[in-house]
């Protein structure tokens, strides 16, 4: 059942991604709407699986594959929330493919592998806070990409094709900021609880230092973004580049993370 839900939601997200991408380039009014239907279907399936997993296991997000599953669920959920609030289906053409990538990674970590995460309270808070902040940063990354594309199109004075389907510059800029400003405190919380959790469980290993360093760099990147967003000389293009760098650091941190 769990395998089926996983596969089905992956297919649904894939369809949603294809439709959203097509919507950017083709003139067909219904494409985005169909994409949203697929995205909602996939999200429902994922939610169902999440509920079933939580009921079955005493500790949710007990391993790497569950954590990544949760990340893709959060990305899709956040995107749908943004869609409901801002009506920006164009964001889906990047957010949904990223949800697909995250979901496909679940297959890279067969269920028990990666070992169980420490079941105590600190680590549970750590995992939820970190993953939620990563989902928020992923969407902020999407916003930054669209901001930079739209900014370039506006500067080069080209208004055809994709231009009309992209979100307005100011809207996407402030949306990216909102997302990062929720993600940042969550990241802070995640890092602190992570350090505390490791200390408490005396699980310090050789990887811990690298983990700590990359996390700290990521944290500083987002801290810089929060300042840059409203500083003269940084606002706009440069600030959004920081957002993209931040997302890449996030991905790097995740890759180095051993989930132990």
């Amino acid at each position, binding site marked *: 059942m769990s395998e089926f839900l996983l596969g089905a939601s992956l297919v649904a997200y894939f369809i949603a991604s294809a439709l959203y991408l097509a919507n950017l380039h083709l*003139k067909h*009014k219904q494409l985005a709407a169909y994409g949203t239907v697929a995205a909602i279907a996939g999200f429902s399936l994922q939610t169902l699986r999440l509920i079933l997993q939580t009921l079955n296991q005493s500790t949710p997000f007990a391993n790497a594959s569950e954590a990544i599953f949760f990340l893709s669920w959060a990305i899709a959920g956040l995107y749908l929330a943004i869609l409901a609030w801002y009506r920006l289906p164009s964001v889906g053409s990047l957010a949904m493919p990223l949800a697909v990538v995250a979901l496909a990674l679940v297959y890279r970590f067969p269920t028990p592998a990666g070992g169980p995460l420490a079941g105590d309270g600190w680590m549970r808070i750590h995992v939820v806070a970190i993953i939620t902040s990563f989902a928020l940063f992923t969407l902020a990354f999407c916003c930054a990409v669209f901001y930079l594309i*739209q900014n370039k199109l*506006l*500067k080069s*004075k*080209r*208004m*055809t094709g994709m*231009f*009309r389907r*992209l*979100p*307005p*510059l*100011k*809207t996407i800029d402030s949306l990216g900021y909102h997302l990062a400003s929720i993600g940042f405190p969550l990241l802070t919380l995640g890092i602190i609880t992570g350090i505390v959790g490791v200390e408490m469980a005396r699980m310090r290993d050789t990887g811990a230092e690298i983990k700590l360093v990359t996390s700290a760099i990521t944290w500083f990147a987002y801290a810089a973004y929060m300042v840059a967003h*409203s*500083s*003269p*000389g*940084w*606002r*706009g*293009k*440069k600030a959004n580049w920081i957002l993209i760098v931040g997302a890449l650091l996030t991905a790097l941190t995740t890759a180095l993370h051993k989930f132990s």
Partner: protein
Amino acid sequence: MHLVVVGLNHKTAQVEVREKLAVSEADLPKAIETLQACQCVAECCILSTCNRTEIYALIDSRENEEVLLDFISSYHGIPKMSFQDHIYRHRGHKAVEHLFSVTAGLDSMMIGEYQILGQVKDAFCIAGECDSTKTVLNNLFQQALSVGKRARSETDISKGAFSIGYAAVELARSIFGSLQELSILILGAGKMGELTAKHLISAGAKSISVANRTPARAEELAVKLGGCAVPFESFTDAMTQADVVIGSTGAPEPIVTKDQMAKIMRIRREKPIFMIDIAVPRDIEADAGDLDNVFLYDIDDLQALVQESVAERHKEIEKVREIIAEETRKFNSWFRTLEVVPLIKTLRQQFDDLREAEWQRNAGKLGHLSEKDQQTVQIMMQSLINRISHNPMIKIKEYASSPDGYSKLDTARELFGIIAEEVEDAEKPEQNDPEAAI
């Protein structure tokens, strides 16, 4: 019964000719009345805008088309010779197709524009008030209006900028999203600046300020646009607050340099600014557009955007033509049901079926009759049917050639209980040639 449109438009005639043949809205009822007085005109509607004057009419026969030209000539008091070369005529389904392309905006100077839809609606309303449109034209115009709406909602024929003002609105939307909260600053009180500001206002912008070297003109324009005037000396201060700046002064040199702009941006804390420079010579140094968060468009940029949108809309023409073809077919098949030939055919068929059914029902009871007697009975039945149907058939043919015959044919259909679809079905094999039908 002959459906025809005669007229001229911006493609066939220069404005010098068009203005001579135009009928103002106030004069329309009188013109329609004059036209209706012609015996051969059953229904008519006159569409007269600055780009076209067209008469849509249902007349008794093709030979009488000249009546419409005679009307134009006598109504305007100009000889036929002077405009005949500019006139086009479309008959039957071509006339239907023509009206549909007009409402869809394909026939407009600015392709896909919205105005024409309102103009056709108005012309149709006036004709309706004059009672000059009945079954056929009512149906035709109602369908034409819905074609216009379909084309605009189902294709991108009306998307994008139609003018510099539209382009400005579209850009403002792409930068800021909503225009509601934007504050607009107009430099100079020129006509172009006013026009552009009006577009932004109609798109939702509310806060307007005007700076002009002559304060009185600034005041005047500010009142007109519902905004306020600011002293020209301090327009750079106003620029630190505004979201959209429209430059349209007559200054010989740029009034805002890149350095000044950079300073303004620092004071604005880099809040994005959209600058529309429609002045020639330009008001804002072109280099200022290189600064981050400054979106500077001059008149050529905007014009290029309009051209681009026109090109984009041209790509949609084929899709609109498909809609028009589909709707023309729909109208055509309805129009055919008004025709007399299919009606007579159906009627004959109906009588024959009746005779056959009666015979089948009673043949058993007549078995005792000799072969010859049975034949006599059949002949009797046939001749009875012929006699009964003789007069209706003659009358139906007569109606066909009278101008309002189709309404009488409607009555005939009702009397014999024939519904429209039946006629259509009987005619199906011939449907390949739509022109023959109308």
